[in-house]
């Protein structure tokens, strides 16, 4: 079971997940339409790319956009959550040992205590983000079961990973659960709202190009997000 999950199944997961995300990017770009979107993407690519860069960078920087600056509490939860769930799996020592064994190379590994802190922080931030959905009327009205499902799919590998890491109960069981939930998470990326892992960049770039070309960029006015 373990061999299958970390062997063929893992490769399949990677192929579907990363291949699928690539398809999403291509389809997004192919579906852009200069006349319907009213943005001359091609004619002013230089201005567009500058605007796209500004748009993406401003929102990746925790103090880069006015939105983040006026909502520091949310910004903290948001960044802790996303940094935790993106950084930890990639640089976790246990994952990199597997990488070394299978492909003969590995990435620099996070010290265990840092990985622990990042994971715990991400889980707590994820729970707080979920709590927001219940607590605030303006978020409650938008929330659907699908949003909760996305959070469950996302947090499950981290929670099972922590349980395995601390050896709560049956280590083998939690390890298997961790691998399965991790693969479900990866497989969900291209097919669900989680596609925002790439579409965030696409959508931000698109609006950035809109501002960079039509809404001021060509007037030499830099959008202050």
């Amino acid at each position: 079971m373990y061999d299958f999950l970390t062997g063929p199944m893992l490769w399949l997961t990677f192929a579907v997940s990363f291949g699928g995300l690539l398809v999403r990017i291509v389809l997004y770009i192919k579906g852009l339409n200069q006349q319907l979107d009213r943005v001359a993407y091609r004619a002013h690519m230089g201005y567009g790319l500058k605007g796209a860069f500004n748009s993406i960078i401003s929102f990746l920087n925790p103090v880069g956009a006015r939105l983040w600056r006026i909502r520091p509490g949310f910004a903290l939860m948001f960044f802790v959550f996303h940094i935790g769930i993106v950084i930890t799996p990639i640089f976790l020592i246990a994952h990199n040992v597997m990488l070394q064994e299978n492909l003969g190379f590995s990435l620099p590994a996070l010290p265990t205590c840092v990985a622990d802190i990042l994971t715990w922080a991400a889980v707590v931030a994820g729970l707080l983000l979920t709590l927001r959905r219940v607590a605030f009327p303006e978020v409650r009205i938008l929330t659907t079961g699908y949003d909760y499902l996305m959070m469950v799919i996302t947090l499950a590998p981290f929670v099972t990973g922590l349980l395995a890491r601390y050896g709560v109960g049956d280590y083998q069981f939690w390890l298997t659960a961790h691998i399965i939930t991790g693969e479900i998470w990866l497989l969900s990326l291209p097919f669900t709202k989680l596609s925002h892992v790439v579409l965030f960049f696409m959508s931000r770039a698109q609006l950035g190009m809109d501002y960079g070309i039509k809404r001021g960029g060509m007037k030499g006015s830099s959008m202050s997000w």
Partner: protein
Amino acid sequence: MPEGILCNKTPIKTDEQLKLVLSDSRGTKYYAEMLELEVDSDALWALIQKTMKSRTKTWFEICAHCGLCANSCFLYQVNGRIPQQVPSYKIQSTLGEIVKKKGKVTNEFMRHCMDVAWSQCTCCNRCGMYCPHGIDMGVMFGYLRGLLYSQGFVPWELKIGSGMHRVYRAQMDVTTEDWVETCEWMAEETEEEWPGLEIPVDKQNADIMYTCNAREPKHYPEDVAEAAILFHVAGENWTVPSEGWEQTSLSMFAGDWECCKDNVQNVYDAIERLNPKRATGTECGHAHRATVIEGPYWTGRPDGLPPVPYIHYVEWLAEALRTGKLKIDPAKRIKEPVTLQDSCNYVRNQGLKDVTREIISYIVEPGYFVEMSPTKEHNYCCGGGGGFNGIGMYREQRNVALRTKMDQILDTGCKLVIAPCHNCWDAIRDLEEEYEIGIRWSFLKPLIIGMLDVPEHMLPKDEE
């Protein structure tokens, strides 16, 4: 009854139909007919499939339902923060549902969508700046308006407005003759005070062509005269076209895409015909948005730009002041606290935030200019944008919406508001009328004329 006589899916194309719909005071019969208007689900769905591409689809798909857009929306803030005013909710519960149901929606639902699209969103585009994913719900509402218009679910005034544009190629019943006569009349009248002043109609190869808002020749002809005075004093080689002088687009507010294209093409044709080096328009936000920012796309221009550089009036003014074509008498500068309304349509939507402030630096004594908060591209809508000002049925909601601007103005402590946009100007006038906070408001033209340092040879003889 699928189609009404007044309320139907067919745009107003003739003067008879226009007069007929206009004669239905307040749209009483029009709205009564709307109750029976049939939704053509197949046509609606076909239109969506043809026009809704990856940008909008992705916006719907990836919306994280985080609710951060809530506070960005002045209508949410000013309406007691009720969750039904959250931008994301507003668009998902309307356009989102129509898409989900593949156009199979009821008449009642379409009327609900109409209420939301025209009384709960002014298409100010502010929410797009506060969404982590960059989802611009103002753009989506603009799109929804187009779908609703195609099915006949549009407020009475805007059906008429776009009908005016179709019949008169102007938002009001101002014909080419009326317009040219107004220009002649204003030139004659103004020439008494400003010797040598002209309003050159259809002059070939001028340096700059001027376009305006039909309201000006119709109700405020002095605005045309003021523009002429400033061009005259600046020594500008300018002209107005006899055809294609109307820059506004109520059809954009109405979502009448076909008419939008026709309006703008008419202006571009004037440019092609008269061959000016540049063009500029009046102090209007949506007119500039329609003719200069969106217009090139409606008419299918591949570079997304008008045929010649087409600047906003504030850009022309700033340039004239910068280059010394217009000189301000320092003694006449504004010496009282004064604030500035940033129009969504050319500040958020074309980045012209510094140009207006440059003008302020010439006309306001240092220390007297007070910024609103928030300001520039983060400024709030005046409260009457996107057609909101002109729809009788939503007057009450519009008056509530004005409170955001009222509070912003009160916070500056200023009694004078500069509003270089027709819609903003109207909204601020109405807010003073409604709430009586003791403010004055003005376009830039009259303010600047009042403080010009006029070269001696231009002064009337008896003043020399």
